[in-house]
């Protein structure tokens, strides 16, 4: 286990060094973060800007802002930790460098998941945290709520990672199709709004089919104490199931890959 922590430290140092080489990208990353938060804020600003509108899906403005905060935080987590690694899987399969990864004496899933970081997008994480703190300052938040939100959000991160991993793993079969994860980004866009803002069938889809509800809405509910015990239990459970499922899927993909290539 300590070996894996040491590896993470080494990988991190190398990837940060590489990125500092391109300092102009820093400006680019800040612009991209601003663009991302702009879309989310404009969306709720126009909704609440209509005369007579005091709530969206039963959420007050600051509660909705809290959801936006969790959305940005997750966006940041994806940009910094998940996407830089997962986008390389398809590339590695296509160029054949996946062979080398599979030959390394460390767990291949760990290797492909921790090699790269996009530190420049840490701004997204900061913006997300800022929004959460700002929105929470207008709401009543108990220490218990903070703990519950932390647990719920930890599950959310696992869920996000597992979905990305599963989608990226399809690259082992569909070599040419490199943008499968875009499908998730498309659906994840719905996480800018509380899940209750959507019509009932869509709400069900976002809870049971693609569990976006657990990523942004559930942590926000937990923070303000409005979380039902059922959802509180469901979130870690979904995360655990997805973790095992995506791990098995990865194993299966690697298995069929190694048996197929000569």
């Amino acid at each position: 286990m300590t070996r894996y922590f040491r590896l993470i430290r080494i990988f991190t140092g190398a990837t940060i060094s590489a990125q500092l080489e391109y300092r102009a990208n820093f400006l680019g990353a800040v612009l991209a973060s601003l663009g991302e938060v702009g879309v989310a804020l404009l969306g709720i600003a126009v909704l609440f800007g209509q005369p007579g509108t005091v709530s969206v899906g039963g959420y007050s403005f600051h509660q909705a802002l809290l959801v936006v905060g969790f959305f940005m935080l997750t966006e940041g987590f994806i940009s910094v930790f998940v996407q830089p690694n997962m986008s390389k899987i398809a590339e590695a399969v296509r160029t054949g460098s996946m062979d080398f990864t599979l030959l390394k004496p460390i767990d291949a899933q760990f290797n492909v998941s921790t090699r790269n970081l996009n530190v420049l997008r840490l701004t997204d994480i900061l913006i997300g945290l800022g929004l959460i703190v700002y929105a929470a300052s207008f709401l009543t938040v108990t220490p218990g709520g903070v703990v519950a939100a932390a647990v719920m959000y930890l599950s959310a991160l696992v869920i996000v990672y597992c979905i990305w991993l599963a989608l990226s793993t399809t690259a082992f079969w569909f070599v040419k199709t490199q943008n499968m994860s875009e499908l998730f980004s498309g659906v994840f866009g719905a996480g800018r709004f509380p899940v209750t803002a959507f019509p009932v069938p869509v709400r069900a889809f976002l809870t049971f089919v693609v569990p976006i509800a657990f990523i942004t809405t559930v942590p926000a509910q937990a923070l303000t104490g409005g979380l039902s015990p059922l959802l509180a239990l469901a979130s870690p459970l979904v995360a655990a199931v997805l973790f095992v499922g995506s791990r098995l899927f990865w194993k299966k993909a690697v298995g069929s890959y190694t048996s197929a290539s000569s």
Partner: protein
Amino acid sequence: MISPPPDVAVQVRDLRKSYTVHEKDPGLMGSVRSFFNRRSHEVEAVKGVSFDLAPGEVVGFLGPNGAGKTTTLKMLSGLLHPTGGTARVAGFEPRKRETPFLKQITLVMGQKQQLIWDLPALDSFLVNQAIYEIPEAQYQATMREFTEVLGLEGILKKQVRKLSLGERMKCELAAALLHRPRVLFLDEPTIGLDVNMQESVRAFVRDYNQRFEATVILTSHYMADVTALARRILVIDAGQLVFDGDLASLAEQSSGGKRVRLQLRQPISLADLSRYGNDARIDGLSAELSVPRSEVSARAARLLADLDVADLTVEDPPIEAVMAELFGAGREKAAESVTGSVAASVA
């Protein structure tokens, strides 16, 4: 505007190019420091190069990595603007990249492909036919020739990504020469190819040169490319032209002189053999050594007199050795451009 006489295809006068590059210390701290405070300095990649090429001439352009070969080719094709001096190619100033100029040249750069990756090569050819406005009859004729000489039969309708490296390079060459350019800039056209494939690329270039009287400038890591195709050699080192002449006189440049090969009847020690010349080598009863050019006959006579020699031949040193020596000499000031063995970087 003075146009060069018609018997000059490429005219280069005091061509210069300098860049600004930034440098950083190794390691994370070096990265952090260079993130905030970037040091840079001016590098002169080409420092005043001059030469003329006649139409139909094939020249080998040699020099170690970083000597300025690719930079010069890019300036001659119009991709880079010189910081000093002039270049005229086929009567045009390359940097203006006028359409009539572009229709008379081509640049082949090893791995940078112009073929469309996910479509058959034939589609890329059709695009080039349209872009270069090649008449249908000429297109058909050229395609027939190329298909025959390069052996393209059967690979033109396969998707480019499914071709082998060698097949791709053949298609790349065909696409680059479809418009029958008069001046060819070939930067490493055989890199990474196996020996057979290298040979067929060479044959193709030779054939094209003869058929269309095209001027060819060729850089290559493989000396065989150069010795097979070029009679004239230009050697560039640290941005300067250090040699311009034919292959034979390049060999004479080498102070090592000629190489004497011996077939002996009696074994001899290396120490004994070394008294007759430099760089002696022994392998059983075969031996070889270098002797100064001016003393070849005297030394040969002594060898024949002193030793029990079955056979003796005198030859020019292999071009690799000459190049190694050439760059080994004037090397001190430009140490940073040498990577790996000098012989390997001859190009």
